[in-house]
């Protein structure tokens, strides 16, 4: 039993210290460095004072807030209508629309930016549409908002789909009985029940836009934002102290969004009670037709953006010679060293998937299902949720400051694949952790009680009962890590070395060198890879569900 005692506490301690070293300490270094000069002497608020006095930097703060607010204002209504169409109307082929809406998750955000240059750039195929919206050029704020709305759309849709999935039919009946108009019913019944989802979706879109680096880099023109400033300070000028300051400024809006979201969610009450009657949409010909048209338009738009980049990658010389070529792929692989970067990305994403899923799931199990060392649990839970509020760029600088500090014995990790894997797992930890916790909470605590009374150590229960039962969730988490590791650049852009450069970063480099065709080719390759991995893993999940999870089907039938 001693072994079990140690295993229970040891697991917690291990997880707690891993999060502490790979998340909390790097972030703490950010605070320390922002108060120091280049020599490492304490200078109080001098760096912050200089930041405020640099007009270009102060301008970026406003630009960033404008960019994030506009993106949120565009994407939330767009996603809400889409989710509403799926959950509250009777349009056909809902599964297909839903899958298409989630496609942008597979693409690096740079793909959207590149695609919008092909679509609306000065030689864009749809350039004629720009003046209709009163725009002169796509570069700068308009292009950034469009590309970012595309990249955040699936995240907002997922949240809103969930929040619109349940409703109490009695409220709608009451509204109808009282003769409320459709608009009034929408304003007084539908919207209030979805407001928590709306706040969450808005905060997620806002946070993603605040910390986005690739989109402004590619299509931002002369519209500086904080994420670009951080990069310029740290990489361009190697001014780590100023980088730390801008990083903290970047952290502020993200943390505010996170806190608002957390406060609002806390007030959420159960919408459904035992007496509720689930709402099922009834057919309404005109409404369904309108929503179908909207959903088809949005789906065409999502597909169109991805296909435009794919098309650009096969065109010989945009826009003058549109004949088919594989030159951009050949150039990327043979001359620009992308083959190496692509292989690194596969290795990195594979490692993140396997190690990330193992740590996240085991970690969630240790936190939720084991006993003892209760003082550690709140600290671990807090650290598990923290990454959600930390922009990738900020995490990346924290890592440079912490792991490149000569007195730190962990400097051996600097410039290795390990640090890329660690930063990526930490960056995407929160959502994965929540997914694992949700799945574990669905399992009856009796399993642990029964094994305890049978004197079976908890880790046997874990490997023999919990993991097999939750295997679909574990695969979900692994896929989430894989797909995000393929597309992420924000943290790793500070951490890669010549030997560990990644595919998504090579897009950035090729775009910078003006090889936009090759950049589009690499982006297309990433989407294709992630799509294959997604389809294969969904297939595996399907097989598992069919073979070993028959018990789930009966519960669905109830």
């Amino acid at each position, binding site marked *: 039993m001693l072994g079990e005692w140690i295993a229970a506490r040891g697991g917690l301690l291990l997880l707690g210290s891993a999060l502490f070293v790979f998340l909390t300490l790097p972030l703490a270094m950010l605070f320390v460095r922002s108060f120091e000069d280049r020599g490492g002497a304490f200078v109080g608020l001098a760096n912050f004072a200089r930041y405020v006095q640099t007009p270009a930097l102060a301008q970026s703060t406003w630009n960033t807030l404008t960019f994030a607010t506009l993106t949120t204002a565009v994407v939330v209504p767009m996603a809400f209508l889409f989710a509403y169409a799926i959950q509250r109307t009777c349009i056909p082929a809902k599964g297909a629309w839903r899958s298409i809406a989630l496609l942008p998750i597979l693409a690096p955000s740079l793909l959207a930016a590149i695609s919008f240059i092909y679509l609306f750039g000065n030689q864009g195929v749809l350039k004629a549409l720009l003046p209709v919206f009163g725009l002169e050029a796509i570069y700068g704020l308009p292009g950034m908002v469009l590309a970012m709305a595309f990249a955040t759309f699936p995240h907002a849709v997922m949240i809103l789909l969930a929040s619109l999935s349940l409703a109490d039919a009695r409220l709608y009946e009451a509204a109808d009985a009282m003769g409320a108009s459709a608009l009034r019913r929408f304003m007084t019944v539908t919207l209030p029940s979805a407001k928590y989802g709306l706040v969450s979706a808005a905060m997620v879109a806002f946070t993603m836009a605040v910390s986005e680096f690739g989109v402004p880099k590619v299509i931002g023109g002369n519209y500086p934002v904080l994420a670009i400033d951080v990069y310029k300070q740290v990489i361009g000028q190697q001014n780590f102290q100023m980088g730390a300051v801008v990083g903290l400024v970047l952290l502020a809006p993200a943390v505010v969004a996170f806190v608002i979201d957390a406060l609002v969610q806390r007030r959420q009450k159960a919408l459904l009670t035992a007496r509720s009657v689930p709402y099922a949409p009834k057919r309404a010909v005109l409404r369904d037709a309108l929503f179908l048209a909207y959903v088809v338009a949005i789906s065409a738009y999502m597909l169109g953006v991805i296909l435009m980049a794919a098309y650009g990658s096969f065109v010989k010389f945009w826009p003058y010679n549109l004949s088919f070529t594989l030159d951009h792929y050949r150039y990327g692989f043979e001359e620009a060293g992308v083959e190496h970067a692509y292989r690194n990305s596969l290795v990195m994403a594979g490692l993140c998937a396997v190690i990330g899923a193992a740590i996240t799931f085991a970690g969630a199990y240790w936190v939720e299902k084991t006993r003892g060392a209760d003082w550690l649990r709140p600290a671990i839970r807090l650290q598990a949720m923290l990454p959600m509020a930390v922009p990738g760029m900020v995490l990346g600088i924290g890592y440079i400051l912490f792991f490149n500090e000569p007195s730190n014995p962990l400097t051996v990790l600097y410039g290795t694949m390990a640090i890329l894997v660690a930063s990526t797992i930490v960056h995407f930890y929160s959502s994965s952790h929540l997914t694992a916790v949700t799945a574990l909470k669905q399992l009856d605590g009796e399993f642990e009680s029964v094994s305890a009374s049978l004197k079976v150590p908890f880790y046997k229960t874990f490997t023999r009962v919990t993991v097999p039962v939750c295997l679909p969730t574990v695969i979900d988490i692994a896929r989430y890590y894989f797909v995000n590791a393929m597309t992420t650049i924000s943290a790793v852009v500070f951490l890669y070395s010549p030997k560990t450069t990644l595919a998504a970063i090579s897009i950035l480099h090729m775009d910078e060198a*003006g090889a*936009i065709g090759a950049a589009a080719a690499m982006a297309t390759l990433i989407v294709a890879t992630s799509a294959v991995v997604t389809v294969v893993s969904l297939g595996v999940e399907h097989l598992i569900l069919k073979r070993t999870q028959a018990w789930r089907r009966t519960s669905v039938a109830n």
Partner: protein
Amino acid sequence: MKPAHGIAWLASVAALALAAAGPAAAQKTQLTVYTALETDQLKAYQEGFNKAHPDIEITWVRDSTGIITAKILAEKAAPKADVIMGVAATSMAIFATEGMLMPYAPAGLARVAAQYRDAANPPAWVGMDVWGATICFNTVEAAKRNIPKPETWRDLTKPAYKGQIVMPHPASSGTGFFDVSAWLQLWGEADGWKFMDGLHENIAQYMHSGSRPCAAAAAGEYALGISFEYRANREKARGAPIDLVFPKEGLGWDLEAIGIVKTTTKADAAKKLLDWSISDAAMALYAKNFAIVAVPGLSEKLPNVPADYGSRLVKNDFAWAAKNRDRILAEWSKRYESKAAPK
């Protein structure tokens, strides 16, 4: 598989991998080379060098001139590079002043023209080739928009070019910096900045590499891109409808130069790379990309580059440029960076 077996299996795989990698890695000297050379040039140079020295493996750390320069300066206390290759002489002069370079006279140094290497003896750095300003002028877009072909730098400040010009950001790009530095040396500080004020009115974007403005002009995104001759020729060869324009007042330029980092523990291998870098074989490779190489007589005529290209280059004082680089960039940033509104 039981966990114990799994670990033993992993350990044996790791041992095998180490055994396989060990001797191969031990035989080759690893040389870390910081560079701002174009990605599409690196491969040929590396293969050329490895033909002569297969026992030395180069790990390139590549970034734009501004970033590589900042990185090298930031690492001054504990440099990670062994050699700096293909970085602007202006930056090399800064490293030399900071005492970061190991003076070395590579074999055959006397062949290198005196103005293309550090004046000290032995020199802290040696030039490889000259790269200079070139405007990529998109004839198709210009015809569509009725934009005349410019002859001079001053032409670019005319209203006809409003929103049609892109140029490299001088803090990021070596090409961008020598443009600014040439205008200041050509016309003096007051007139130089006045010219740039006018040019700024017509600039659509400041881009972060010397290549991208030409690529943007080649793709018709903008009618004119201020760039350099290598990228301009590459884009034209790929089928871009561009003409190369060499403004009459004179062309900004810099040297791609090479030098050894003082702290290197691999001085022998580093010296071999320097010896090779000014050899005839290396010059032949540079001559495919640039009109002027550091050893006179080994240059070859490039398509689209005029025969009198050398005499069109401005007088460039590297020592002055190096000494004033920070000040020039700060002034530039103050004037043009804070006007952040997108055009």
